[in-house]
């Protein structure tokens, strides 16, 4: 016989999986718009608003489960982790919105040299993969998959700092390109951080161990 709390945990889990898929779409769309130079701001804005609202709903649900069931052990860890993950998803959407805003406001990477666009495209691929990994690890509470994110997180971090160094060294870009590209790589790096936090939360909820994958 299932427990009453199980229905609430399942509802929360479904809510987070939906959020996960929507954040994946949002981040992907925003990056695609930036790389292609197409305007996706209003679409991303709408998706981002939906995600913020879903994050609030998830938070309300976690509070309700805490208040009504006083969860402990794996139930408590799951609720705590889900609450953090909902926030991480909201942050994904916020950075996706920021990227699309940069594209809208400064023309994105239009004025950038080819090496910059290629560099950011390569970094984006890694970040989008990290977002996918975090969502998949969450769906199946797969700690092994969650662990794998550490390597990509390190690579993205390295790419971020390397990009800044290369930009200073080459200094070929226009002001618009410099501002846009620096902000975009910064937002990508932050998305990667949140993907890593999600994977840490997955490991915590499944095992009770607090791991740092950064």
């Amino acid at each position, binding site marked *: 016989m299932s*427990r009453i*709390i199980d229905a609430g945990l399942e509802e929360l889990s479904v809510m987070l999986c939906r959020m996960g898929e929507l954040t994946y779409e949002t981040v992907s769309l925003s990056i695609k718009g930036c790389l292609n130079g197409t305007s996706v701001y209003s679409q991303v804005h709408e998706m981002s608003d939906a995600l913020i609202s879903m994050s609030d709903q998830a938070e309300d649900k976690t509070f309700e489960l805490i208040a009504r069931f*006083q*969860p*402990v*052990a*794996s*139930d*408590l*860890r799951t609720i705590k982790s889900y609450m953090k993950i909902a926030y991480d998803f909201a942050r994904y959407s916020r950075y996706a919105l920021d990227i699309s805003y940069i594209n809208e406001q400064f023309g994105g990477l239009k004025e950038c040299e080819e090496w910059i666009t290629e560099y950011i495209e390569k970094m984006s691929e890694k970040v989008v993969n990290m977002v996918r990994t975090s969502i998949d690890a969450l769906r199946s509470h797969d700690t092994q998959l969650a662990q794998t994110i550490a390597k990509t997180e390190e690579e993205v971090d390295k790419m971020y700092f390397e990009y800044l160094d290369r930009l200073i060294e080459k200094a070929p870009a226009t002001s618009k390109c410099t501002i846009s590209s620096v902000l975009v790589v910064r937002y990508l790096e932050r998305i990667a951080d949140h993907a890593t936090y999600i994977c840490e939360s997955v490991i915590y909820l499944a095992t*009770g161990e607090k791991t740092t994958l950064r």
Partner: protein
Amino acid sequence: MSKVDVCGLNVWFKDNHVLKDIKIGIEPNAVTAVMGPSGCGKTTFIRAINRLNELIEGSRTTGEVYIGDENIYSKETDIFDLRRRVGMVFQKPNPFPKSIFDNVAFGPKIHGTDDEKELQRTVETSLKEAALWEEVHGRLEDSALDLSGGQQQRLCIARALAVNPEIILLDEPCSALDPAATAKIEALMRRLAEKYTVIIVTHNMQQAARVSDYTIFLYLGELVEYGITKSVFENPKSELTEKYITGEFG
């Protein structure tokens, strides 16, 4: 250093082996909660700490229980003094059909205190420690049976405190109380732990999580887990503990 060291404790009631080779050290000045499903030996465990089990016909105990350096199961133990040092509060409040004052003064009197002023001081101190003084100081001669359930339970705690114990055992002290009275007893337990070693048996896991510093989980007479309450309730080591506290069985 532990306040109570339980070394290989076994208790039988006739052929029923109720506690099996329990080994545990209970910390001083802390609240330790004992939890587990019905019949797991929780009450037997705490009653082993003041040798109340032996009042039950057919009981047999082996192993050692140390309070400080003294094995309370040695032949030299003065049981009368042991039960003064280890006070007990039961599930249902059980005040004597006497006045509030006489309930609290009862213990000191039978332990030889007959000085009226000293008795008054002890009664006042004990009622204050039990957070009851403010509610009853103007009517100490009223019958204890006129108090509410929660007040009666705090009176029983005051009665235990009046003989200057070291350890307080509470056997489901809130099971007959409403939420407000329960909250008062729980707050009191936290306060008492500043001075005494408090061990509570509870069926209510949320209560164990709220009030205790350490938690013991017993199952079928065996010690399954013992640890800091935060760890037991957040990340229990044993799968059995996990299943019990999350309501999968019990």
